[in-house]
């Protein structure tokens, strides 16, 4: 610790930080633009100037940029010094000379860092009377607006998009007073993290285009702490609503999970909540008169009592909802609504994490890995946020080495970036086809899943001879395995990544073997295994039978009434099987949020709340339990699935859920009765938590129009809904200070209206939130023991004539069921085509765009093909989950129909 004198008062601060960080961490309001806690300093904007004094005697001092000066023991600075104050006011005034002063029509208004800083420095009178420089704006695609006239040239956008996120299509062009931040021409910003520009840009240049469709100021929205449901990364988000419509998703800082950033699927994939395809009404086939909750419950209960019932749970439903279903139907009748292959992959993953010796990494642990091996995973499409973390990881090692050697602090971003150039920490990526992370890799190999696992096992063997040796490797494979093993052994914090992406248990097992072997040799290794959906891990931990058995149970008459929880079975099993299953079931009761093919077949449709209308707990791929909260109470009968199921159980006379009423009851019951979930009761404060007898307000205290906004329906103000499930209130009444980290509905502090107010919620800027980052890890490896390695002899991948080994391919925009309801996401969805090696296509006499006819599991299919020179032969990929692509439980061998050559 160092002693820093600020305006003559001594403060204890951390050494190694810069003065700006130190001042902000101490709670001073010091304005800044270009510095960003995750991206460091470049000293570009000159807004953060303070006076620095040599010693106590020095009365003149000199101006320094606080973001560029390291904290030194006994240093003396002044924030209030008149010259510093004047300088900062002058900077703002200069920055504002070209600014259009159009806050009233600017989407940033009310959550604008430039507004806040302008007020903070006291620049409130405009003296500039000349013409302003103007720019032409660009159409940047479906996600972001562009309004360059508002730019203050802080360079944050480029530093995020290009330097931090690796984007290639945004840059700064021109010089002095006409620098332009944009693309080379109009067009979609391609980087998968582009949406963060809306938060990174301190002005209204880059703003959220989806918000513009139904624009509302930040202060006029109701907000809630929520979780992204887009994949299993568990990114923390803020969901914001007005007029019963979800209007914006922004990132919610969680230092352990997503830091400051989320991906574009997470940010823009929310529009299904407002979509026409929503299930909002109760529907009972043949009984249109049943519209209200009570008659529905009576009817459904009668049907449930009539026969023998089974329940199908969901990896996209909360723990509470799955638990409620399992209780209602009984443990023996609870099945997982996931494809059988996926079921096996996720269960294997869980077993490896629980019984193995190696921990899953948190976000900071990923970012500080010093050697990385990826086996089989196309990460941008299976765990998007992780790629952004890996991008930081590969720079970290060279950056730290340089920082030590040249005595330049790591936060000196421009200097460090310049000095390390393209140097990267080792990252090896072995995947079935070219992937985004290749640009970070020291070496990429493209191999079939079988061969990936063989290489994985061979690396493990090279690290630990107890692992079975793999025979018949090619010379090249042998060379690379030896090299990779050596590099991993040299590292201090190696990270092994694999998961469901390649659809192969062997690949996952080989990753586990590598990690375990490293652990055995004393390495502080981490193992990250992706799983597909937001609660895949929670569902697997809960336990249950595979889907195939549910189909069998109905086929053999062991069950005839089916309750399906938040699931479209046509995405989980082949069409003929699902058709038969649904036809054979006497009653099909579906609880879900959006209409889909299964809904068409269901007899009873029960409208379930989306994440914006429900509370619940999810377990991320890391094994972290986190809570999401309802933003608003929807009109009509929509409510949480767990609440429906509880009421349904009651109506059936099933007493197992009688004692559970509010969310807390469910959480406690789960924690009590399922030891694997012990601890989930502590991840967020209970519903009776109060601060000074107050609940935490979901609405900012400036929320307007409350007495008038429903005047067209009813003149007298409606009683606001109460929230018995959480410590949050649905109105502006309540506590507005800093609440426990798990229940922060939005970031705001006096004078800090923009997202930059996060600073005030952290113990020190860039560090964890007050009260610790939210969530609790539930899976930790057992006591150190010698692992039993998986590796066994397996033959190299065979190329079979007239056959193709088809594996699933995922798309960040397109695969996920709900996010494609956002038109912007849908427009980025890839073509529904099978990709194969060019040489294979040539051998069949097919070209790009030609149709490939094939058989799989007895069904005939016909799909267009694309060719790629880098694909291994004998193998192809099918983008699954896309519109127009039928479900197939891949991977598997498909038999090609002989091509008729003309």
């Amino acid at each position, binding site marked *: 610790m160092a002693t820093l004198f600020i305006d003559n008062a001594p403060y204890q601060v951390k050494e190694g930080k810069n003065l700006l960080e130190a001042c902000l961490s101490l709670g001073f309001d010091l304005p800044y633009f270009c510095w960003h806690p995750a991206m460091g300093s470049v000293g570009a904007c000159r807004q953060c100037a303070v006076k620095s004094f040599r010693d106590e005697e020095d009365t003149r001092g000199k101006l320094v940029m606080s973001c560029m000066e390291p904290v030194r023991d006994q240093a003396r600075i002044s924030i209030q010094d008149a010259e510093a104050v004047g300088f900062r006011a002058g900077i703002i005034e200069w920055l504002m000379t070209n600014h259009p002063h159009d806050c009233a029509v600017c989407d940033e208004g009310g959550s604008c860092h430039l507004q806040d800083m302008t007020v903070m420095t006291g620049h409130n009178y405009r003296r500039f009377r000349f013409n302003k420089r103007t720019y032409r704006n660009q159409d940047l695609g479906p996600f972001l607006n562009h309004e360059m006239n508002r730019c203050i040239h802080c360079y944050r956008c480029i530093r995020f998009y290009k330097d931090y996120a690796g984007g*290639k*299509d*945004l*840059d*700064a*062009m*021109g*010089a002095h007073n006409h620098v*332009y931040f944009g*693309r*080379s021409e109009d067009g979609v910003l391609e980087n998968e993290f582009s949406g963060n520009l809306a938060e990174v840009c301190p002005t209204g240049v880059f703003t959220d285009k989806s918000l513009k469709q139904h624009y509302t100021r930040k202060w006029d929205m109701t907000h809630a702490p929520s979780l992204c449901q887009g994949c299993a990364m568990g990114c923390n988000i803020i969901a914001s609503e007005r007029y019963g419509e979800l209007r914006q998703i922004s990132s919610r800082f969680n230092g352990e999970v997503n830091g400051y950033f989320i991906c574009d699927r997470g940010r823009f994939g929310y529009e299904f909540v407002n979509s026409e395809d929503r299930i909002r009404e109760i529907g009972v086939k043949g009984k249109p008169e049943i519209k209200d909750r009570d008659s529905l419950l009576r009817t459904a209960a009668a049907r449930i009592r009539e026969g023998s019932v089974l329940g199908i749970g969901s990896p996209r439903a909360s723990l509470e909802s799955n638990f409620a279903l399992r209780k209602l139907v009984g443990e023996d009748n609870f099945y997982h609504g996931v494809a059988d292959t996926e079921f096996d992959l996720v269960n294997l993953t869980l077993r490896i994490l629980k019984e193995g010796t190696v921990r899953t990494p948190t976000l900071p642990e990923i970012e500080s890995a010093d050697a990385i091996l990826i086996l089989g995973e196309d990460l941008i499409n299976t765990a998007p946020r992780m790629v952004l973390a890996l991008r930081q990881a590969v720079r970290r090692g060279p950056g730290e080495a340089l920082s030590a050697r040249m005595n330049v602090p790591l936060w000196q971003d421009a200097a460090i970036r310049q000095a390390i*150039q*393209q140097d990267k920490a080792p990252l090896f990526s072995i995947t079935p086809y070219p992937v985004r992370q290749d640009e970070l890799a020291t070496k990429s190999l493209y191999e079939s899943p079988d061969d990936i696992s063989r290489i994985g096992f061979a690396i493990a063997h090279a690290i630990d001879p107890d692992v079975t040796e793999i025979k018949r490797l090619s010379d090249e494979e042998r060379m690379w395995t030896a090299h990779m093993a050596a590099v991993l052994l040299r590292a201090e914090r190696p990270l092994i990544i694999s998961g469901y992406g390649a659809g192969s248990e062997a690949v996952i097992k080989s990753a586990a073997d590598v990690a375990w072997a490293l652990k055995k040799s004393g390495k502080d290794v981490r193992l990250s295994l992706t799983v597909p959906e937001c609660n895949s891990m929670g569902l697997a931990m809960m336990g249950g039978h595979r889907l195939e058995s549910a189909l069998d149970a109905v086929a053999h008459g062991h069950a005839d009434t089916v309750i399906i929880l938040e699931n479209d079975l046509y995405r989980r099993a082949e069409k003929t099987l699902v058709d038969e299953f649904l036809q054979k079931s006497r009653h099909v009761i579906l609880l879900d949020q959006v209409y889909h093919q299964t809904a068409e077949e269901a007899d009873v449709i029960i409208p379930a709340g989306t994440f914006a209308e429900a509370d619940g707990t999810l377990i991320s791929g890391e094994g972290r339990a986190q809570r999401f909260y309802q933003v608003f109470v929807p009109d009509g009968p929509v409510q949480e699935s767990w609440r429906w199921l509880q009421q349904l159980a009651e109506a059936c006379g099933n007493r197992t859920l009688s004692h559970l009423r509010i969310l807390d009851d469910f959480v406690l019951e789960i924690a009590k009765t399922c030891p694997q979930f012990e601890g989930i009761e502590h991840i967020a404060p209970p519903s009776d938590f109060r601060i000074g007898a107050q609940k935490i307000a979901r609405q900012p205290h400036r929320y307007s129009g409350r007495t008038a906004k429903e005047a067209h329906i009813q003149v007298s103000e409606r009683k606001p809904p109460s929230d018995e499930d959480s410590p949050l209130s649905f109105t502006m009444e309540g506590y507005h200070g800093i609440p426990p980290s798990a229940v922060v509905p939005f970031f705001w502090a006096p004078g800090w209206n923009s997202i930059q107010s996060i600073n005030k919620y952290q113990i020190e800027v860039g560090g964890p939130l007050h009260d610790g980052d939210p969530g609790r890890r539930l899976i930790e490896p057992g006591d150190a023991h010698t692992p039993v390695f998986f590796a066994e002899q397996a033959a190299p991948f065979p190329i079979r004539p007239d056959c193709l080994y088809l594996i699933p391919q995922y798309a960040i925009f397109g695969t996920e069921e709900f996010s494609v309801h956002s038109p912007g996401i849908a427009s980025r969805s890839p073509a529904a085509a099978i990709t194969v090696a060019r040489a294979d296509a040539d051998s069949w006499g097919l070209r790009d765009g030609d149709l490939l006819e094939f058989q799989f599991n007895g069904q005939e299919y016909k799909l267009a093909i694309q060719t790629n020179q880098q694909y291994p032969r004998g193998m192809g990929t099918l983008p699954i989950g896309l519109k127009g692509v039928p479900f197939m439980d891949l991977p598997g061998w498909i038999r090609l129909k002989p091509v008729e050559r003309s």
Partner: protein
Amino acid sequence: MDIDTREIRFSAERLAEVYEIIGRYPEGRQKSALLPVLHIAQAEFDNWLSPEVMDYVADLLGIQPIEVYEVASFYTMFNLKPVGKYVLEVCRTGPCCLVGAEKLQSHLETKLGIKPGETTPDGMFTLKTVECLAACGFGPVMQVGATYYERLTPEKADELLEQFRKENKRATYC
């Protein structure tokens, strides 16, 4: 030849020069050759950098086109629009102004009938004002291609224009 119809490709000789420059930098750092290669490209293709020319350079160096635009748009010596055969770059910084640069500029404007940034209809001359050319002791200074013309008067400027008209070649930096 008109740039639109001409194939954008360096002659074998120029290409050898370009590869020699690229070869000065370590593997993977070809981008370092960007400035000299852009100069060659500008000289080669009618003294301006069209998007097509910049894309060609990007391709040669294996970088993104936008990385070329970023650099080319930063420096005033790169012309991003078509220019005349002779780009008259008149210094407008203090010392030159003190000894008559403004007079020189307005003389050229009247004589050629164009303002700074414009090109004469016959495609001969483009007028451009520039910042300090670092020849303050010899003002007013005008740069045309790689040559500095110093201590200029309106009369001397007229002679120069005549001379350029006669020569009728493109003046480039390299």
